[in-house]
């Protein structure tokens, strides 16, 4: 078992996203989303590993996802939740025009929740995200879930809808968390492996142009 701080989660997921080819700005969104989910007790490392693996094996998926968002064919194609989420968050109050008129099919829909939550903070919206067996309400930057955790953390493609809705019943929500304790490290190892790709191996020249006292620190 290993406990990860929020900062470690943010930095590692960001690096991993960059490692599978997402642009830096999107990688930042991935890191912040993972951090938010961890802080709210609903981070599923497997969901992130699934999304990043899809990017790794299908290099055209990022562009296809972006085009699907704009072309109103979202329900026909599986969209990356990080790309859809970033776009939705950027739309701000313009999201209202999207609600009810669009449906999307996304991989690992829980990854959308941080973006919706961000919108509710910045625009004062009440939003709900719905997919089979699960409904997530976002309001004022917090989250409440109707449904069981298994449905929430699904990492398969599902059709989702974004609704303007307030939570109507007492449903489970989470206390703020200061990190995550991993009981199973497989997906975390995968994320670290993706992140490792952002490092540059040493060369003779880079060793020459060092940045410290070198191998001898005796003074």
């Amino acid at each position, binding site marked *: 078992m290993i*406990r990860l*701080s929020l900062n*470690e989660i943010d930095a590692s997921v960001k690096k991993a996203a960059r490692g599978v080819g997402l642009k830096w700005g999107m990688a930042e969104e991935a890191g912040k989303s993972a951090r938010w989910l961890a802080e709210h007790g609903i981070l599923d490392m497997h969901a992130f590993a699934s999304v990043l693996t899809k990017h790794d094996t299908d290099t055209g998926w990022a562009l296809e996802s972006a085009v699907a968002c704009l072309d109103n064919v979202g329900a026909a194609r599986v969209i990356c939740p990080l790309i859809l989420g970033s776009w939705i968050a*950027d739309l*701000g109050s313009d999201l209202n025009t999207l609600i009810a008129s669009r449906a999307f099919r996304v991989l690992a829909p829980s990854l959308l929740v941080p973006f919706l939550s961000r919108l509710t903070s910045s625009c004062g919206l009440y939003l709900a995200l719905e997919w089979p067996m699960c409904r997530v309400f976002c309001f004022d930057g917090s989250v409440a879930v109707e449904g069981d955790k298994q449905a929430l953390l699904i990492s398969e493609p599902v059709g989702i809808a974004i609704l303007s809705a307030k939570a109507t019943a007492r449903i489970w929500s989470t206390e703020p968390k200061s990190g995550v304790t991993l009981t199973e490290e497989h997906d975390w190892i995968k994320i670290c492996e993706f992140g490792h790709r952002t490092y*540059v191996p*040493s060369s003779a020249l880079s060793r020459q142009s060092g940045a*410290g006292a070198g191998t001898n620190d005796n003074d």
Partner: protein
Amino acid sequence: MPNYEQVSAGLKVSNQGSTIALRLPEKVMTLEHMGAMFPHRLSFVRLLLRRVKRENWQFSRPVWRMNADGYGVAVYSFKGPKRTYSLVAFSNELAPEHRTDRVIATAWDASFTLYDGLPSEDDIARLAANVPLQEAGRISESELSLSRANKSLRLFDHVVDRLAAGLQPDYEIVSSVGYLFRTTAVYGSGKMGAADFEKTGTYPGLAGPFQAEMLVVYLIREFSLDLVEHVATMRAPKKAVVLTDYIRRQFGVGNSTGLGMAPFLVNHPAILNQWMLVRETALARVRDLPIAGQKDQLMAYASTFRQRVSQWQTDDVAQTHRNQLLCDDMDKLSAFLHTLEFANFTRWNEVYEWSERHLSIDGQEGLISLLIEMNGPAVDDLEGLYDVNELNSFFINGLWRIGDVVAALDSDYAWAFDFNFDDPNEMARFWYVSEEKLEPRLGERWHEQGSERELPLGVARAICELRDALSHFDMDSKLAEFLLLHPEHRHTCRRLQLHHTRPYSEICDNILSAKMRPIDLLRFKLACFGALRFDPRSDRWLRISLYQNAPFARELQKSNDTWMFPIAATVDSTQ
């Protein structure tokens, strides 16, 4: 919060009736100016010691289990009004061939963690199994920081020898090195499982910038002096003496700082803005103050500062020359003040403006630190301006129209368009994370592999690329659509929107240029920390000292906060 207003055009400061404008970012955010900055009374070490004194934190050393050679464990505790923080220190034997200050080293003379509370024996046992391993170990959210340090063997052995012989160490040797231990890393903010800053920043006493890290270094200084006296006493129990207070004060804590620290300033623009805003607002306030009654005081400050600069030792030829120029500047300043006619010069602003015409940039920046130093009551409330929530500036407003983005680029980033990125020299470098070192490094783009894994630190180049991409887009369309189709500009657009309301958030220079000197970035950050004695070892790393001349924990209540720029008339009562 202080009463100030930021206006992007003109940057007027309205606080305290001042009409002095803040200095323009295009001037002060250049590497030339940032690389000439000195610490000041709002530097982070000063904030910490003022708070510890103000709140009367109680200092103790509840654990000291060291063998005759100085190897073992110690705990130092500071009990504040609401919370106790403890430095847990492990001292180990280290063969000289293993003493490297590289981040990738695997063994150190001493390792440390800052514990939230007073550690139990079980805690100490847990930490003993992890802290000395540093990156190879794990700590918990009860720990706020992780760090390590190596001895300056030459000075440590000298001090032990002299004390054991019943003598004080040679002042010249002490002064020339300036520290017994030199830290090679001080980690915070969640590293290796430690508590995140979002948590520690809410702890009483640790809310300001790098306050947990500054506390660690301060307590390492206590530890280093206790350790050297302990070893001397164990060697010659009947003959050994302890250090005099005066000599003791000459020891700070050393730090070797390399490229790993540089990207922080680019990666945290909102924080950078506040750091500079605090200092520039302080400067604007003191420039507006009357000179009357303070002329002799500034002359005394300039004289003492000159004396201290003349004692700084470095093998770096350029730094030696700059130090000499700085000494000359302090002489010029004193001569000017001596002849100053009050009929023509009534406010410090006139002296500052004189410095722009007659002093080197080091001299100008040195004067600023002295002016701020003299006027604590006018500036100390600016401490609150350091508070910043980075998350607030993370979100992108996609409703901006492309025309708005272009207008912001042209007004806020005009400096970036002065660089010609068709010139290979302007693109000569790239920043990356080294697989071997696991920290940022600087590569030569045209001679080394790996630029495809470049970190996004070339802001000026990215701004030019964004401007070019936008010129092909409909000016009435919205930024959200542009970013969906051009995610390669998402990072830059986030910066642009942040910078639009935070004028000091960008370094107005090209840090990919062949001419760029990384130590300019390092010096700026270290000056914000409160470091003096800048000793460049190349253009990529330098050594500094923190807390040299600072009062020790047991002296704090008697001290009067003049330790960084002491002058004869206001020397600490404890010195």
